[in-house]
């Protein structure tokens, strides 16, 4: 049984002060107990990746942090502020942005409306010119219906729209799922660039080859718990364990 990475022994390579602290996080979908005491930290300026098999609880962890799951317990502190009981709109206004796995592009809105939908919650968001610099395709498709974009373009739109809000902490749920390798590469470059811009990113990925190109640290989620954690520098040494965890 691998050692559990706990709050007392977080993985190394902290890039800045602690921005997110998750302790004993539990969550339920109706009667189903999904998270059984998740513990991890994210430091400012880092890209942290949650790895794990399908159904391990990665997405539920992000949704619980965002306040989307109705029944949750434990402690989630963002910038030392307890948010476990806050509603998702209040959590967003603290500067946390969420990009869902299914992308959440609205079919009744065109690309421009989708892009401008999330309100600016604080100063420091990227201006539109910079967003179009990151995602030039979007500028050409502003008047198209959001769901008429290709999968890759929809993913870009889903990321782009949270960048202008001023949120400094981004949670990206499987941003590469179902995308062509060339688009995955582009998403990877974007995440690297966002990191340089000072964003802190919590990523959920099954594709650890992609994650290894952008992440500073990893946590492995299994059966609703964090079962291991290591830094990117320790990835090679942990590869066998990782293969076993992910069943690849």
């Amino acid at each position, binding site marked *: 049984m691998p050692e559990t990475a706990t709050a007392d022994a977080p993985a190394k390579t902290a890039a800045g002060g602690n921005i997110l602290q998750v302790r004993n996080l539990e969550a339920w979908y109706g009667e189903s107990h999904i998270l059984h005491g998740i513990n991890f930290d994210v430091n400012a300026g880092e890209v942290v990746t949650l790895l794990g098999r399908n159904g391990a609880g990665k997405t539920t962890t992000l949704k619980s942090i*965002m*306040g*989307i799951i109705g029944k949750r317990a434990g402690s989630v502190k963002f910038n030392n502020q307890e948010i476990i009981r806050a*509603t*998702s*709109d209040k*959590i*967003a*206004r603290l500067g946390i*942005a*969420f990009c*869902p796995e299914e992308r*959440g592009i*609205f*079919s*009744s*809105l065109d690309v421009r*409306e989708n892009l*401008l*939908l*999330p*309100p600016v*919650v604080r100063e420091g968001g990227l201006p539109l010119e910079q967003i179009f610099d990151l995602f030039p395709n979007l500028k050409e498709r502003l008047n198209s219906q959001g769901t008429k974009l290709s999968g890759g373009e929809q993913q870009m739109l889903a990321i782009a729209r*949270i960048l202008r*809000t001023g949120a400094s902490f981004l949670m990206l749920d499987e941003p590469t799922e179902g995308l062509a390798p060339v688009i995955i590469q582009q998403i990877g470059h974007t995440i690297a660039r966002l990191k340089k811009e000072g964003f802190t990113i919590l990523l959920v990925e099954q594709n650890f080859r992609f994650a290894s190109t952008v992440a500073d640290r990893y946590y492995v989620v299994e059966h609703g718990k964090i079962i291991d954690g290591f830094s990117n520098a320790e990835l090679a040494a942990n590869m066998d364990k990782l293969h076993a965890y992910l069943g690849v």
Partner: protein
Amino acid sequence: MQALYAQLLVGLINGSFYALLSLGLAVIFGMLNIINFAHGALYMMGAFVAYFLLNLGGISYWWALLLAPVIVGIFGMILERTMLQWLTGLDHLYGLLLTFGIALIVQGVFQNYFGSSGLPYAIPDQLKGGMNLGFMFLPIYRGWVVIFSLVVCIATWFLIEKTRLGAYLRAATENPTLVRAFGINVPRMITLTYGLGVGLAALAGVLSAPINQVRPLMGADLIIVVFAVVVIGGMGSIMGSIITGFALGVIEGLTKYFYPEASNTVVFVLMVLVLLVKPTGLTGKAA
């Protein structure tokens, strides 16, 4: 020929009420997923508030056009906060039964105090009289109702389809959880949307008061036809409700001229035909 034009005008006026009421129903259904059977009672309350404002407070029709929708809208928001919000996620039937019960209670209370006969509400001085258009005589108040309703309908459509607030509403109709996770207070938006839909019904009630008198059951008579309009237009479709409202009013008016016996049933016949050919309504999308 004069009679045909007169029936066309009656059709347009009825169409104005259909459009305003079905627009409110569409907005409420789109956002709350509730079939608001209390809509007719709230339309009636709009007319009664205008009546009270005039007779108890000496407040004119023009102020009533503003105040009655606000007052009834606030009443609607209280209903939403205290009762309707608990229906989120439940089957449509619960919302339908609850709002039907609310309609019966509201109508019963008004009937208890005011009986079933109509109370008079005078046409404002500025809108009295008529114009001879050559081919027909147009009562100014009736022309005002048609034009004002059209302006309100287009303004509501513009608000929902072309503004940032409307984008929030449309997005929240699709995925309220995600919209809330963007930092928008969706429950408050739902309450305000219900207030807006109810306010439109109350506005129709004020417009109707000088034409149809103020009666506790004035909404009950109308709401069944309005639901047929909504079904034909497509549940939740904003432009569909407006166009279908006016169009069915005109079709009803023309039927009164050409085949009066069918004038009360033509809307329902059309509803059956539309349901057979396109069950989602003329402008509605499949779920």
